[in-house]
C-alpha cells in the first residue's frame, strides 16, 4: 500500500498538504509558493500541477492569477542537442 497522499506535483512529489502549509506560512502568490515548495520545477515544468495549485489557492481565499510561465526546456531534451553545432553558422572557436 502507498500512504494516503494527494500529490499536487508529480515531478517533485509535492503534496497538497505542503502547499496548504506554505500558504498558511504566508506564501500567498504562485511564484513564491513555487520557490518555497518546488512544484512546477521538474521535467514537466508545471503542465500538471499549476492548475491544481491555483485551485488550492482559490479554496483558501487567494486570487491565484493566471499562473506562472514554464521555462524552457518545457519537455526533456538531451543536453547534447543543445550543444550541437548549428548548420550554416560559422563555427566559433
Amino acid at each position: 500500500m502507498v500512504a494516503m497522499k494527494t500529490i499536487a506535483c508529480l515531478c517533485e512529489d509535492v503534496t497538497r498538504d505542503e502547499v496548504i502549509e506554505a500558504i498558511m506560512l504566508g506564501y500567498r502568490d504562485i511564484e513564491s509558493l513555487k520557490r518555497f515548495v518546488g512544484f512546477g520545477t521538474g521535467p514537466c515544468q508545471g503542465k500538471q500541477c499549476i492548475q491544481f495549485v491555483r485551485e488550492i489557492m482559490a479554496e483558501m481565499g487567494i486570487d491565484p492569477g493566471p499562473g506562472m510561465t514554464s521555462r524552457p526546456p518545457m519537455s526533456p531534451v538531451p543536453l547534447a542537442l543543445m550543444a550541437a553545432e548549428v548548420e550554416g553558422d560559422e563555427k566559433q572557436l
Partner: protein
Amino acid sequence: MNDVEIRFTFDGRRYRARKGDTVAGALYRSGVKVLTRSIKFHRPRGLHCGSGDCPNCLVNVNGVPNVRSCITPVSEGMVVRSQNKVISLRFDPVVLMDHFFKRGFNYHHRFIRPAFARGLYQSVIRRMAGIGKVPNVDVAAEPTQRIRTDVLIIGGGKTALHAAEKCASAGLRSTTVINSVQEPRKNLQGSSTLDGSFVVGAFDDGHILVSNGTRLHIIEPRYVILAEEGRDQPMTFPNWDLPGILRETAAMRLIEDRVAIGSRIVITGEATRRERVADLLRTSGLKHGEITITKPGWKVLAAYGRNSVHKIVISDGGSKETIACDCVVTCGPLAPRIEIARQLGCEVVAKGKASPTISVDESFETSRKNVFAIGGSADVLDDSEADRSAEIAVNHIISRMKGAGSWSR
C-alpha cells in the same frame, strides 16, 4: 499491418510490441504497469497522461535517460530501462519514506541541520532521488537546423492540419510541428511537417526551438499559429498518481493501439466524454470486463493499491461506495495549453480558479502581434468553430502580408 511483432527489452526482460505501439503502451499490454518510481517517496508510477505532459513514464531508452515512453514508438531491439528505483521497480524499500513523511517533506527545510552534515545528507538524498543518471554513452546529436518559414503551426490535431491546408492553398510556406499523428496527412504544396516533434521553448525574439529527440530546429517564423488540442486536466484525489489511473488521452490512445486497458474499469469525469470512452471500449472488440461509469454528482474520494490501483471509493456527498477495479479513466475538464503563449509573452487571463485562457481578438490574434491562437489553444472546442478559427487566422495573415508588400506569390 498491426500484427508485425517488434522485440524489445525492459529491465533485461524480453517483451513484444506491435507496429505503432508506444513503449508504455506495449508494456501496458504485457501487464507492466509500474514504469518508474517518484522522486522523493518512491511511490510507484506508470503510464498516466499519454501525451508527454507528465513525468510518470520517464525511462531510459538505449542509454538516453528521461525519455517519455508514452509518446515514444517502440523499435526493434530497443533497450529500455527503468529509472529512480532502489532494488526493483515492484519492490523498492525507499517507499518507507512515503509512510514516514505522511504529509510530505520539503528538502529546503529538512535534512539541513546540523550545518556540517548537509553535504552528507545531500549525497544520500541525491543517490535516492534524482530522475535518471547522466548517460555514459554519447548521445547522437545531429546538427541543429535553422528553418525560416512564413507560418509556424503548432499542434497535431484537426485544427492544426486545417490551418496547414489553408496556408498551402494560399501559397504560404508553412511548417507544422506535430507531436502525435492523429489524422492522416496529405502532402501539401509548400508545407513541411516536423513529425514526432515538440516545442522545447519559445523566445522573446520570436524564435521557437523544436526537437524530435535527435536534433533541434531553430524556427524563425513570420507568423505563429498556436493550434494545440486542449489538455484533459488531471482529476486529483488521494492516490490519483497510482499506476492504472489513466487520463482520457492515455486511455484513448491505448484503445486505438488495441491494448485492453483493464478487466474492471471505472470511468469518471465529464459526462459526454466518459460515455465516449465507454462506447469506444465496447465497440473496440477488446476484452474489457465490467465497465462502471460514475453517476452524475459522484466524486472519487480516494484510490487504493500497492503497485497499481485495486479499488476506489466514490461518494455523492452522503453515501459512499467502494468499487474494485484495475483501471480508472479520468475525463477531467479540457483546458487550453498556454505554456508556449506565455513564453512568447502573450496575455493569458484567468477568472478565479477557472483554467487560464489565451486572450485573442476577433481575428484570433493574441496580444503579441503575429501570434495567433486557434481551436483548442483559443478554447474553441466545437470542431466546425475550430475550423472557422483556422480560416479566419490564415486569411488575416494573408491580408497582412499583402498589406506589408511581402506577398510575392
